[in-house]
Each structure stands twice: as C-alpha cells, then as structure tokens.
C-alpha cells in the first residue's frame, strides 16, 4: 500500500469516528427528543420538505435537460451563452435573495419556495447537460452521420449515452443542494424541516436543531448515494470501463 492509500484510510476512519462520536453525543444527551416525542409533526415536516424538493427538482430537470439538448443543436448553439449566463445569474444571487424575490411574486407559502428552488436547481443540470453533450467526440458524431444515422438516432444512441455520466452528476448535485436549501423555505412560510432547524436556532434549543438538521443531512447523503447507484446502471458499460481505464493510466 502506498502512502496516499494510507492517508485516505486514516481520513476515512477519522471521519466515521467523528460521526459515531456525534451520534453518541446527541443520543446520550437526548437531542432527538422532538423527533421521538412528536413523530406526527416530524413526518408532516418531512413530507412537506420532500414535496418541495421533489416538485422543484423535477420541474428543473424537465426544463434544463431539454434546454441543454436544444442549446447543443447547431441551430440553437448561438443562444447558449445567453441562457447559461441567465442561469448563472440565478446561481450567483444568494439563495435567500431568490427566496425573497419569489415571495415578492407569489406571496408567502409553498409555491414561492418551489419557484425559488426550481430556479436554483436549473444551473447545475443545464451546465452539466451541455458539458456532457459537448464532450462527445466529434469524430464519433461525424462517423454516425456518415453512416446514415438521423440526428435523432445520433442523439439517443450516441450523444445521450456518452453524456449520461456528466448529466447524472449534474442532476445529483442539483438535488443534493436542493435538499439542503429547502431548509430555508421556512423563512418564507414554505414549511419543511427548516421549521425545526430555525426554531432550534431561535430558542437555542438543540433538541429542535438536531431533530431537524440530522434528518436533512441524512436525506441529502442517501440521495447522493442513490444517484451514484443510478449512475452505475444508467451509464453504458463501455463508457464506465473507459473512464476507469483512463483514471488508472493517468
């Protein structure tokens, strides 16, 4: 084993030790009491949290993926900078400001939260869709066209499979960020687990804080893992093996 691998192991073990320590500390101090004593309220908040995440990121997915595909077609390539820059703007404005703006449009409540998180999720998906499609080897596309594939066939059989890895990574990033940011929905009356987190902060009460923050974190981590699994199944074997071989030879 080389020193790099040893360091990686040490870091990993230290990380897991910290986590175990953290849970031991929270549980032994009964910090999950809110969750355990008010399960109904917890599931209500969790459900609302998931609702916001699911609706906003599904809408973002349904907008950004087709937009990314469209913007890499020869006909629409000239509009790429415009849309990417607009989406970029959405990302540079602090999430709280977007929430405030959305509230200005839709008033307080879940709709405003969904709108804000939708805007916030667009960029990572759009960017990675475009990057993935742009990374497709031009000679593969040229060969495909020369062999008589239609643009539609080239998109489905060559471009999307080859871009899948990057696209899924973008969607994963967007949703994981979304789960965390949804905690802010509380600020504009959108509900979700942010309710307990902010109550905990305001009252200086760890039982609220931990009962809200830990489930949000676990949710984000498990969705992240789920998407890694999805990546394994959706990225074609040839691409996966080629990426692995490229990493090993580097």
């Amino acid at each position: 084993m080389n020193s790099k691998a040893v360091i990686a192991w040490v870091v990993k073990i230290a990380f897991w030790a910290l986590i175990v320590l953290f849970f031991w500390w929270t549980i032994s101090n009964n910090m999950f009491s809110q969750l355990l004593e008010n399960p109904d309220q917890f599931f209500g908040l969790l459900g609302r949290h998931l609702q916001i995440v699911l609706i906003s990121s599904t809408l973002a997915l349904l907008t950004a993926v087709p937009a990314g595909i469209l913007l890499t077609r020869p006909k629409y390539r000239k509009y790429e900078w415009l849309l990417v820059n607009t989406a970029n703007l959405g990302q540079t404005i602090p999430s709280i400001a977007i929430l405030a703006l959305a509230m200005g449009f839709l008033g307080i409540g879940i709709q405003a939260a969904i709108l804000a998180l939708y805007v916030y999720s667009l960029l990572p998906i759009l960017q990675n869709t475009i990057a993935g499609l742009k990374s497709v080897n031009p000679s593969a596309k040229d060969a495909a066209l020369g062999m008589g594939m239609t643009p539609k066939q080239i998109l489905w059989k060559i471009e999307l499979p080859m871009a899948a890895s990057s696209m899924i990574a973008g969607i994963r990033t967007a949703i994981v960020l979304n789960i965390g940011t949804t905690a802010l929905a509380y600020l504009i009356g959108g509900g979700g687990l942010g309710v307990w987190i902010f109550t905990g902060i305001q009252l200086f009460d760890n039982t609220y804080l931990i009962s809200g923050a830990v489930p949000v974190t676990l949710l984000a981590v498990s969705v992240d893992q789920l998407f890694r699994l999805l990546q394994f199944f959706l990225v074609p074997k040839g691409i996966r093996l080629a990426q692995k071989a490229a990493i090993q030879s580097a």
Partner: protein
Amino acid sequence: MIEFKNVSKVYPGDIKAIDDVSITVEHGEFVVLLGPSGCGKTTLLRMVNQLEELTEGEIAVEGNNIQELNKFEMRRNIGYVIQSNGLFPNMTIEDNVMVVPSMLGWTKEEKAERFAYLMNLIGMPPEQYGESFPHELSGGQQQRIGVARALAADPPVMLMDEPFGALDPIIRSRIQEEFLEIQRSLKKTILFVSHDIDEAIKLADKIVLLKDGKVQQFDKPAELLNQPANEFVAEFVGEDSVLKSLSLYTVKDLLEGAPPTEGAAPDASDAIFEETASLRSVLSALLTPSQKNVWLKNNEGRIFGPVSAAQIESFVHRMTVTA
C-alpha cells in the same frame, strides 16, 4: 461508380475549396485523392455522401444523382471510414460494426453471420473481440474495426478519409497491405484520401492530384510519376519519382520482363526475395553495404540471380518508356 461533373464547392467567406472537378471513378476502381493539406481532398470526399453540400455541378453514385436521393438512406449504402476511427465508446465492437445492418433491419442471425465473416476478413477472431469495447483495442485494431464497420452492409462504394493516417509507420504499412488484399477479393469502388504519395502509389489504381481545389492530373500512378502533367505535379512527386515508381513493380514483373540467369545456390547471408516483393525493397537490399548477394525466387521455388542494380535500372528505363 462515382461521377463528378463540373463540381465546385464554395464555403461561407468565399473560400473556393473545390473548383470545377470532373472525374469518374469506375466500378471496382481504387482511386486516391492526393494533394497537400487544404487542397480540398476531404471536401470533395464528403460531398459524395452529402456531408457537404454541392455549390455547383452534379455527383452521381452508381448512376443516381445524389441530390435526388434520400440523404440518410444513400449514406447507409456507402461505406465511410475516417482517420480518427469514430468508433462509439458506448457500444461493444459487435454493436459498432453492426450499426448500419441494424438500421437496415437485418435479423439477429444475419448480423451474427456477417459479423463473424467481417472479423475473420480483418483477422480479428469474432469470439475474442465481439464483446470488447473500443478503448480496449490498439490503434491499429480500432482502425481495422472502422474498416469492417464500413463494409458491414456490403456497400458497393467506400469513402475513406486518411483511414491509416494516424497509425505508426510499421502498423500502417501492414494494414495497407491487408486492405489491398481485402480489396482484391471484394472489388469495391473506393475513393480514398491521402496526403502521402507513397501510400497513394502503393494503393491506387488511379490518383487524382489536387491543388487549390483543382485537378492537376488524374492518372495511373506510373504515369503520374513518369509523365507529370505540369510543374506542380513534377514537384509533388519529387526528384525521387523513379525510386518511387519502383514500388509499383514486383519481383514477378522483373522475372517476366528480363530475368537474371537461373541457378547457383545462395549463401546463408544472402537475401532472397519472393515474387510479391517490390523492386524498391530489392534495390534497397542491393544498396545495403553489408548485403552480399541478392536472389529472386519465383512461385515454383526456382532461384534467379544474383541480381544487380544495373539490371533493375534497365528494367525501370524500359517501363518508363512504355508507360
């Protein structure tokens, strides 16, 4: 058959890439488009399968005006090979090779049979490589697969854009020979782009030499070398055109023309060339200081020689006069 009639191509920005080209590639003929970089070889080739639009003129493939055909259907009927192979990394070798037959709706059995035939043709066992992915193959193997893929649906016409250009010289030379062997049995109509005159001489039945989009000479390799049509052609074929023309002839040609005397037994350190060896390699051996004697062997195993450089010289003189 491919016919070009007064074909011109102007790119946006008033770049005249092809200027009034009229040539015919006959059925079963191997024609090489030759010329310096930027002279329009790729453009001319890509106009045949409508990857580039014609500005003026007409192109007919197998007697059909291409502009009256469905673009996608006509391309499936033309083999296309490019320099950087363009294999699809997400597909297995078998799926790569069978792209066109799949589009044409072949059955599984038809495809499996054709795949096995093609892989044996290019000397790569189907059972060993069928499930591999492109990145697992060497550059030479990838290019062989590129050729097999273009041959998949047995198209009558093949377009090849510097297909062996990115390979190292030893592999390139071997693949050129393999491909010539394949072409001898399949007799495709081939339009092949190259910037390498040695490659063109080795492969072509006829060469189209281009400069600034204009045809300078359209001729057999021997004629191009021995009777250059103008100053540019003479310069392009170079001062060693006689040496180059030696690649056109084999030991067999020499034995049929003016055979050296038969007999004698070669030493162990002597070189013996078979009928298929080019005269260029024979002369090269003769000029090698450490080489003792050089002998020629015909297909019946009879030995002729030792051959001299003077004998090759007189043979070449005779050929260039009659060419």
